[in-house]
């Protein structure tokens, strides 16, 4: 379970439970706010002017309504309901299958409580869905729970209307529009009752609309209610097949939190729930364990390494949220823990060694980073522990990252510092982690190629070298493979995509997972390849695809109109050296085919920044053709109008990969 889900359970679950005596009153309140029926006045002709040629379907209405009635007495509980109301217009057969199988995401604090579905065909005949079939039909995928249903009666030209009621919603919600179809009209409405703030719950919400959503109005309604309306219109489909795009960051969304909720509240609340409980101080069992894992009389960094090694190699993580898997004492005995238990165990062992550490929760880089003005738990993903005295990090949930520099894939993310509410803290709660460095993510190869005239083949002395973050990932992958899988993996790394090739003399160095702990060591694979794959015989010699030794390169030439910004996912360097020993009696032609110099500069904050580059050189020195390649990418999101510049560098690598030289007898 991701930490965000856990948080929602802890923070919200009690809020979504209603007392029976208030149900009737509350139902009336909800009905007043949102009449849970079809829009009988729905007028299809309103959409006659929409251009839908070439589109599979259009969402003409995408509305979310959050209804909140705060507690009215000291013994009362607040009540919440969320409604979503969508109307789809189906234009092509291919959209029918997508619409037939519907997954309704639900969290433990916001479960689907009612569903109305109807399909209106071209002749206005209505097919209604029987929601009794929804009983217990749920699916769990990727740690998320979905109510699933198959919508009946859809044809080309049909309109499908879906109305869903959720019991409860979080104080910190994100309404995010991410659909495979264009959306004509989108709306997020929050309705709340302001009359009972005396009971210590400030209900005035703080909301931010992003990527198209704008606050349309804030209305005071009868009965002391307030209504916020955010609108967006003519939104492009966000689920597409585009490459080099970020899946979420450009989605239209509205974030919600309560008015007085600041980063400090979030930080302290999480600390209270996770880090202020279950700590074993100076217990005999813990002391004995610390003796066993050898942390006594060690420097701090060695102590951290030993504690991390013990937890990552001896404790099994379970999805079970039972409290028995959260107690350090029990975890030490049974060696099974859920993520809360893992964090408690770290804290227990570190505290008992008097090691100073700062716990953080980070926002998922592949999801959405928070708006600094609006404190939210939405998007929080993993715990990170920072050790200021040693200036190193631990990722408790990663089995292959070990104590050391911050992993590149979380470089530059926002992180929430977790603080003890009973201690004074005056710094920032939301910080930005150091950016990923391309110099810490390097992939190198060195190849010496010679021609065997007897059998018209090539012999390649090849080596792959991985540095920094790239080495850590490689070791992580190897650590979880058995011998035969390791062999196959290393073969693939060395052979790249060569079809007819034999590989011998394979050697490896510094591949054990232990090297991942604060190490700058390089993973090294070497081997000897014999192949005919890179040769095409011609009259008096051969064409040589020498650059194939660097491994398969991607390209993207053809793509329609760009919808999203260009997302360069990882900061990365590739370096290759290729030496070709020119056989006696032969000469080489066309080495200029191997020379490239392509660079992409983008204007970032008014400054021209070098984002990516592919530069290769070729020269003949003492009968050896030496080719050097230097390629790099910075990470980040860049304007879509610059797609061709980015594409040019990516394709340079591909063009280099397919380039050929001619080797002929003199």
């Amino acid at each position, binding site marked *: 379970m991701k930490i965000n889900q856990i948080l929602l359970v802890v923070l919200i679950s009690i809020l979504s439970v209603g007392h029976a005596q208030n149900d009737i009153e509350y139902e009336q309140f909800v009905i007043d706010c949102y009449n849970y029926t079809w829009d009988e006045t729905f007028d299809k002709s309103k959409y006659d002017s929409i251009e839908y040629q070439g589109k599979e379907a259009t969402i003409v209405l995408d509305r979310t309504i959050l209804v909140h009635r705060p507690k009215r007495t000291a013994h009362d509980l607040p009540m919440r309901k969320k409604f979503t109301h969508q109307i789809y217009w189906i234009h092509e*057969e*291919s959209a*029918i*299958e997508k619409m*037939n199988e519907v997954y309704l995401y639900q969290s433990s604090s916001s479960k689907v409580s009612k569903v109305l579905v109807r399909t209106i065909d071209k002749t206005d005949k209505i*097919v209604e869905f029987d929601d009794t079939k929804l009983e217990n*039909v749920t*699916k769990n995928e990727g740690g998320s729970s979905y109510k*699933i249903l*198959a919508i*009946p*009666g*859809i*044809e080309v030209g049909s309109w499908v209307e879906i109305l869903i009621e959720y019991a409860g919603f979080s104080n910190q919600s994100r309404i995010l529009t991410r659909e495979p179809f264009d959306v004509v009209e989108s709306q997020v409405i929050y309705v709340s009752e302001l009359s009972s703030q005396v009971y210590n719950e400030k209900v005035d919400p703080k909301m931010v609309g992003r990527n198209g959503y704008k606050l349309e109005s804030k209305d005071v309604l009868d009965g002391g209610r307030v209504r916020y309306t955010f609108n967006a219109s003519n939104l492009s*489909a966000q689920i*597409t*097949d585009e490459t080099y795009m970020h899946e979420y960051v450009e989605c239209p969304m509205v974030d919600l939190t309560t008015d007085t909720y600041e980063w400090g509240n979030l930080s302290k609340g999480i600390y209270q729930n996770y880090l202020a409980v279950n700590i074993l101080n100076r217990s005999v069992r813990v002391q004995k364990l610390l003796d066993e894992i050898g942390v006594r009389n060690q420097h701090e960094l060695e102590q951290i390494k030993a504690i991390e090694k013990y937890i990552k190699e*001896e404790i*099994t*993580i*379970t999805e*079970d949220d*039972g409290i028995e*898997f959260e107690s350090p004492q029990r975890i030490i*005995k*049974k*060696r099974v823990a859920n993520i809360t238990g893992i964090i408690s165990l770290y804290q227990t062992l570190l505290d008992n060694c008097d090691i100073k550490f700062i716990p953080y929760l980070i926002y998922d880089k*592949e999801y959405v980073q928070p708006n600094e003005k609006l404190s939210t738990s939405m998007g929080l993903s993993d715990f990170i522990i920072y050790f200021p005295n040693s200036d190193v990090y631990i990722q408790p949930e990663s*089995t*292959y990252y070990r104590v050391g520099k911050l992993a590149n*894939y979380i470089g530059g993310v926002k992180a929430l510092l977790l603080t003890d509410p009973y201690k004074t803290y005056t710094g920032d709660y939301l910080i930005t982690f150091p950016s990923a460095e391309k110099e810490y*993510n390097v*992939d190198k190869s060195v190849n010496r190629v010679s021609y065997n005239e007897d059998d018209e083949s090539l012999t390649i002395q090849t080596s792959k070298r991985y540095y920094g973050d790239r080495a850590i*990932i490689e070791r*992580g*992958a190897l650590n*979880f*493979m*058995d011998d*035969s899988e390791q062999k196959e993996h290393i073969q693939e790394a060395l052979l790249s995509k060569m079809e*007819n090739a034999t590989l011998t003399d394979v050697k490896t160095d510094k591949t054990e997972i232990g090297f991942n702990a604060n190490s700058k060591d390089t993973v090294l694979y070497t081997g000897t390849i014999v192949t005919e794959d890179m040769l*095409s015989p*011609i*009259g008096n010699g051969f064409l040589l695809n020498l650059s194939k030794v660097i491994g398969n390169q991607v390209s993207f030439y*053809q*793509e*329609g109109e760009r919808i999203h910004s260009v997302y360069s*996912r*990882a900061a*990365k360097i*590739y370096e290759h050296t290729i030496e070709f020993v020119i056989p006696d009696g032969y000469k080489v*032609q*066309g080495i200029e*085919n191997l020379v490239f110099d392509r660079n992409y500069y983008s204007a970032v904050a008014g400054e021209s920044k070098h984002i990516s580059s592919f530069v290769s050189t070729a020269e003949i020195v003492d009968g050896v053709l030496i080719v050097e390649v230097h390629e790099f*990418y910075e990470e980040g999101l860049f304007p879509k109008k610059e797609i061709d510049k980015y594409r040019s560098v990516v394709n340079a690598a591909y*063009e280099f990969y*397919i*380039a*050929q030289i*001619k080797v002929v007898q003199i």
Partner: protein
Amino acid sequence: MKVLLSSLLSTLLIFITHGQSPMKMKKHSLEITITKSGDKLKIITKETSQKEVLDISKLRSGDLKEYVHWNKAFESRPDFNAFTDNSNVENARKKKVRVESITLEDYSSRGVFYDGTKLFTLTFPAVESGSILTCVTTKEEYESHLLPPFYFDNYSDCESAELTVRFPNDIAIGFLNFNHETSDQIEFEEINEAKETIYRWRAKNVKGLTYESDARGRSCHSPHTIIHIKSYTLSNGDIKTVLRDKNDLFTWYSELINDQKLGDHQLAIVDSLNAISNSKNELAENIFNWVQHNIKYIAYEDGFGGFIPRTPESVIHNRFGDCKDMALLTKTMMNAANLDCYIAWVGTRSKCYTYDNCPTPLVDNHMIAAYPNGDDLIFLDPTSSYSVFGRPSSFIQGKQAMVRTSEGTFEIIEVPIIDGKDNLDHTIINARIDGNDLLGKGENMLSGFGKESYESAYDHRLTGKEQLFTDYISLGNEGLKVENLTQDNLDSNKGSINSKFDFSLKNYLRKFENETYINPFIKDVIDFNLKDRELLLDLDYKSKTLVEVSIEIPEGSKLDVPFESETIAENDLVLEITTSIEGNIFYLTYSFTCNRLEIKPKDFEAIRSTLKKMNKKLNKQITLTHEN
């Protein structure tokens, strides 16, 4: 850019979740105990898994878990006896620690929207190097026709695999062994006692499962045994038959299927199709096409819903159904139109059984309709929106179908295999040279199963449908740019998709001083290889790829073609090359015909050699020498 970090991470995840375990499988066994309670059978299965941890530091997150599937429609909620045994671990604090963490969640296998299956996950506690992790799962099987098969191999090498069946002597039990020849260690013994009989199979040191893409299902290569109850004696002395042979299987299936009638609304649809049809065959085709295009396939089954079709009326109302729903609907609509039509059970090519060698429900996993046309039987699979009337779907070719010819009769008929020439991918390229690029016009005619898969991919593509054609046509290299694409016949279930386009291939030519080299075999025609392959390769369908290329020779250039017209025909693979020069045009026609549906491991060596020979021919370059 070579490999993005994310793809590496996802690779890592695959290793974590699907790779072989660093642990040793010590034992896996299944014990099936069949008893009688009055005139009813009681079937208890006890499955045991025992793994030894070799090196705790290399364990993956999934290694310390046991996964157990459960479907309440067919079996009782499982009882677990799961524990970590640390008897062999030095200084272990406790020798036996029971599993306490057991979670339950919904589970769906690939391609199934819903079938009611759930998944238990058990997490072993107190594990150290040397621990033995044991899980014993006991369940009652409710349905005597659905006993679980036992596979002797497992996800990793296994020291001991054992299947035991105990049953009273008045119950007749059959067993079916498959692929036992691949594991010479499997031993069988039969123990006859006064009141009961015990069958036992034991295997030692069984090699772990091999995974390869485009292989057929596990039943085709893993050693396994299927137990079936043939019959048993009732208290009054009568014999109750269960699954003796395919006749009993048909009888059981028939109990789950009832012929249906259509309501007025559905009959109106049949009438409207009748009105536009000029012959019986045309009407049959129109009904088939109507079901194909108006009912969407959703594998939405729950328990016995996996065996019992919904009524045609509800399927038309819903506009969706699974294979049984669509097959029964097709048959019912045809019958309503006074056309003969049958339903038929069939196993897809992922299964390697026949109704004779495996007369149990494990033999099949699909249902289709069958329409008699004179002496021929036309197999109709409406789950594919793209399949052509008169042709089966590709994944049931060559398989036996159990055709229900009436309420009480059936015939076993083999589904035909479509010839390679009827799955033709024909490309015509007229090219000219422009600097280092090759430019020109192209045409492509795609028919048969190739057309069906293209249409499916086209419909499921979210954006960039033009890119789909570029990826599919795959000319030259990735520098291919396709423009002005027009495509006809994409929505029709007949003929071929006809595509016309302009193309450019950037940097396709290799220029060196006064010579230019061109690989004229511009389109790949061999789309499989056998590199490092161990398991049978399933090719989906027989096919033919034909390419006609013409290249304008620039003025002042001399052309050298270092190959001649030639045919290589070996092992049901044919490569034909013809070449000529007329005026200033170089002509090349080449085709690759694969008259195979599959390649068995015993043929790998011969076919590797044939492919090597053919690929060498297709790697030839023509040379243009410029006079200046």
